[in-house]
């Protein structure tokens, strides 16, 4: 996957779109219009997992208390859990 330098900057990758990335995560961020109204399509480029967020969900994230968001960052919270 080559990164092309264009006017939109090195984070805009052909066929993938804008990427918000750091050494800790790489997420492609696109607006999807396949459904009845537009929504955000987020793809974890490391695992390929996709999540769509509708405007109300996005608003919720924006209003989420920092403490609440921080809890979700715990790797055991949702992602790597013991499911024995």
């Amino acid at each position: 996957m080559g990164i092309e330098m264009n006017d939109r900057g090195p984070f805009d990758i052909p066929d993938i779109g804008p990427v918000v990335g750091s050494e800790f995560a790489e997420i492609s961020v696109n607006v999807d219009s396949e459904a009845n109204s537009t929504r955000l399509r987020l793809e974890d480029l490391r695992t390929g997992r996709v999540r769509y967020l509708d405007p109300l969900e996005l608003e919720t994230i924006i209003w989420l208390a920092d403490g609440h968001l921080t809890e979700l960052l715990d790797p055991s919270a949702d992602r790597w859990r013991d499911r024995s």
Partner: protein
Amino acid sequence: MPTVINPDAVPKSLVSELIRPSQVHGSLYTDPAIFAEELTKIWFKTWVFVGHESEVPEPNDYVRKQMATQDVVMTRDRDGDIHLLINRCAHRGLQVCDDQKGNSSSFRCPYHGWTYRNSGELLGYPYNKGYGGKGRLELGMGKVPRVESYRGFVFGSMADDGPSLLEHLGAATGEIDRLAGLSPKGEVSLDAGWLPHKTRANWKFLAENETDGYHPQFVHGSIFGVTGSPIGALYSDASTAVTRALGNGHSENDLRPEFRKFAEPMRWFGTTPERVPNYVAAMREAYGEDAERRMIEGAPHVMIFPNLFIAEIQVFNIQPNAANECISYATAVQLRGGAELNRRMISQSIGSVGPAGMLLADDTEMYERNQQGVSMLDPEWLDVRRGLVRETTDEDGFTIGAATDETGMRGFWKQYRALMEA
């Protein structure tokens, strides 16, 4: 019963016999055991310059830094507080943060996914049943215990207690103030990028040289000649400039007497008010009558013990790797509200201390030859007596010598010895 003082109980430093009032021994620069002692007694104890708040302007910004042999991440948390995290995972010791800079509220170790807040606390870890469930571990990233800044200059101390940063800086605060006072907004930023310059020499050669006014005419003769710079004359026998030991190992070449003599604004920068009209107007607007004095006297040339050198238009951060190697990081000073001057300071810095910069190359050549030389056996001592015959005390009680005297070096060694023998 009378207290018997056992002289053997007093911890003795390896360096005690190696520093004399006018001489220092060559092994101070070559002995790995002395370097190890310096790490514990100086670099992991006193206040060390790390970076500048302007390098992490936004919440959750971070940059990697070096504190002697330690890999440190300077972070700004979401509340705006600055932290210095030791870049080591509390689980199995991995380096948690790999990028040189970025923006992240938390750091996740690549080995087993342990996740830390950007203030160092452990947020969580995968498969927590192995530890008895969530929240059972009180392990965080290591932190530099004391972090303080002065006018945006961030310093860290690895010791839990000791003198405050202000006590350590002492009179050197006045020099940092003087630099900030050349900004129409009273603020410096150091966000133009740092150029690391690996030098095969002991860190003390750099620290001593920074206020050595004896060498410029010789070492930098070629660049002064090519550029027609008037700087050479500031460091001559005829100069009215002085070298001042500011206490606590700090020292300066105070060039103000020379600049006051000419009383020309911007001469210190080698330019005239007409060529930087917007800057001059902004200074007059900000400081009124006092603007002229500031623009005549110019920026400080000060070495702040052990590793921060403000060289008028550049700032250097010296960090040791080993007895015979250090890294000198250089960046151009940027004055808030001084766009016109900032552009010039960047291009002048590229010319003097950039990858092909002449000043830095000149000095580095001397440091590395110096390092080679001190491994030779005879004579064993280096001489630092220059100016002892004419040293005086100024009205503030500081020791001063002439522009070319080794007053700064002697001040450096006094502080060095005090810390090593403490």
